[in-house]
């Protein structure tokens, strides 16, 4: 094995790839899409959470319950505004999110200590408003409970008598849930970065060479086919490693700016977690290009190869999604299965309970073995006549 020659081959592939605008853009997109999505979605959630904190409550018939209105007004983040004249129409058409309607007889019933009705007009099909509406409902409930307590005390009854249950809210709000989902998607983005960034160079250096007719003269050089394949693989693998590093460090930077506390989420993601995640995912940067180069070598044209890449990328995407939905539990064999093993390790790292180094080594060994297998299969393909004269 002549390492200098392998280096020559890799270096040529890099020069070729980085001069190609198409491949450069696809590289940039591959490495940036994960961090951008994570940043964008985390920001959206934080924003929604903030807007939920500052609620403007349109109240119709404010004059009917001045005490309630002023109590609401005093709550943090609550603003009372005038209601539209036709509340139901306004909510239906989306002009306003919801309306609180206080009927004329409210004061009368309230004073008689009878249940006084209040209408909360909202459209329950609008999911995004549910956080606001339920907050208002809770506020009204709190007011009701407060008044009820006062009334019991006025009649000489201990309020605790009337409280058979106290429900402690352990709230998993939708914001928290969504933040958790995105957080758990990070391994998926990191693994996918290996596939997306290596794709272009893997296809161009194999199917692209065939299409341009440059493979035949290349194969006439007295270079063992294994060196050719390893040179091309190494070029793609280094690009995949770089892509993964960029993705991971940008995600780490993005997460350092996410106000997890504000979101009510207890996540930690710092340099330690990032490097453990890298240790879990890095074998993919070696394996993905090996599989890609093998598949692309079957293709006669760049386009044909790209369609294979499209199918291939579904494997880590599906595996990552499934691992999000169905935690694997204790199936040790899954842990050494390439791709699944990387996801499981990554999930553990994200959950703050990384397993011992032996699991990292086992998963990495399997991925590297698979990379070696595909490299040797590709070498075999390069040795056959079919690579030059078609299938």
């Amino acid at each position, binding site marked *: 094995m002549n390492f200098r020659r392998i280096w020559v081959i890799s270096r040529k592939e890099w020069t*070729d790839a980085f001069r*190609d605008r198409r491949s450069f853009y696809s590289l940039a997109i591959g490495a940036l899409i994960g961090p951008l999505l994570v940043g964008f979605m985390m920001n959206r959630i934080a924003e929604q959470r903030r807007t939920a904190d500052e609620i403007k409550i349109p109240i119709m018939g404010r004059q009917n319950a001045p005490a309630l209105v002023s109590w609401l007004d005093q709550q943090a983040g609550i603003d009372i505004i005038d209601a539209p004249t036709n509340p139901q129409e306004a909510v239906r058409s989306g002009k306003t999110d919801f309306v609180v309607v206080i009927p004329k007889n409210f004061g009368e019933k309230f004073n008689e200590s009878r249940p006084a009705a209040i209408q909360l007009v909202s459209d329950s099909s609008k999911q995004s408003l549910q956080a606001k509406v339920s907050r208002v409902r809770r506020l009204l409930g709190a007011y009701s409970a407060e008044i009820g307590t006062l009334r019991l005390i006025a009649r000489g009854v201990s309020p605790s008598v009337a409280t058979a249950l106290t429900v402690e809210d352990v709230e998993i709000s939708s914001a928290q849930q969504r933040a958790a989902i995105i957080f758990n998607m990070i391994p998926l983005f990191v693994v996918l970065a290996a596939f997306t960034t290596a794709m272009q160079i893997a296809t161009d250096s194999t199917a692209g060479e065939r299409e*341009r*007719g440059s493979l*035949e003269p*290349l194969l*006439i*050089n007295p270079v063992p086919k294994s060196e050719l394949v390893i040179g091309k693989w190494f070029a793609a693998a280094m690009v995949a490693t770089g892509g993964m590093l960029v993705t991971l460090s940008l995600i780490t930077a993005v997460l350092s700016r996410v106000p997890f506390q504000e979101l009510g989420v207890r996540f930690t993601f710092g340099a330690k977690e990032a490097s453990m995640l890298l240790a879990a995912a890095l074998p993919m940067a070696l394996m993905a290009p090996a599989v890609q180069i093998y598949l692309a070598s079957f293709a006669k044209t760049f386009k044909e190869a790209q369609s294979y890449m499209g199918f291939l990328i579904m494997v880590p995407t599906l595996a990552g999604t499934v691992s999000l939905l169905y935690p694997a539990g204790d199936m040790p064999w899954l842990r050494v299965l390439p791709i699944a093993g990387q996801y499981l390790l990554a999930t553990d790292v994200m959950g703050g309970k990384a397993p011992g180094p032996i699991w990292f080594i086992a998963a990495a060994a399997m991925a590297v073995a698979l990379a070696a297998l595909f490299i040797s299969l590709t070498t075999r393909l390069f040795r056959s006549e079919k690579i*030059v004269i078609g299938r």
Partner: protein
Amino acid sequence: MAVNDVSFTAMDGYVTGLLGPNGAGKTTTLRMLYGLLKPDGGSIEVDDIKLNGNPLDVQERLGVLPDVSGLYPRLTSREHIRYYGQLRGLSAAELDTATKNLIEALGMADIIDRRVAGFSHGERTKVAMARALVHHPQNILLDEPTNGLDVMATRAVREVIRRLKGEGRCVLFSSHVMQEVSALCDRIVVIAKGLVVADGTPDEIRNQAGVENLEDAFVALAGQEQHEQ
């Protein structure tokens, strides 16, 4: 089967022409010579080295301009030469000298540091030639080197072939153009339908066909029908 029974010897210091109509088996024969196709039978020797079992040793001694020039559009001419030179293990100094000589021999000074994308056919052939000759091979295989070239470029290629012959190297080139072969070759191997139909000097070929003109000889030997394709 593209090639059925093709046997010939190409000597050092001679230009041997592989002449035949399109589809006669020229490219297939050359591909077997440079080790990309394995013949079902028979043997190939280059400088007394058997190809079978030692393909890399044989390739070591060959410089090949294949059917398609197959360049990398985003690399410059110089980078093409350097890539192949490095693959063949040339040192930096050797590569430097070789590149200088090739620029001069092929008249590439104006295109040496330009990217290949957008090159004319003649310029592309020059780059492919330079790349094939960078390691100073003793044996040179050229698959239709002047195909589709204009007069000036054709002349440049002929010039290079003569020069290689003068240096005592073995040049084997294929063509379906009569004039090309008669202008350059010391020896002609005419093949048709995968068989050698004639083998000898231009005079011997004419005698064999029993006609005065070499082109008539070619037509007579290769068959009218095929030549018209």
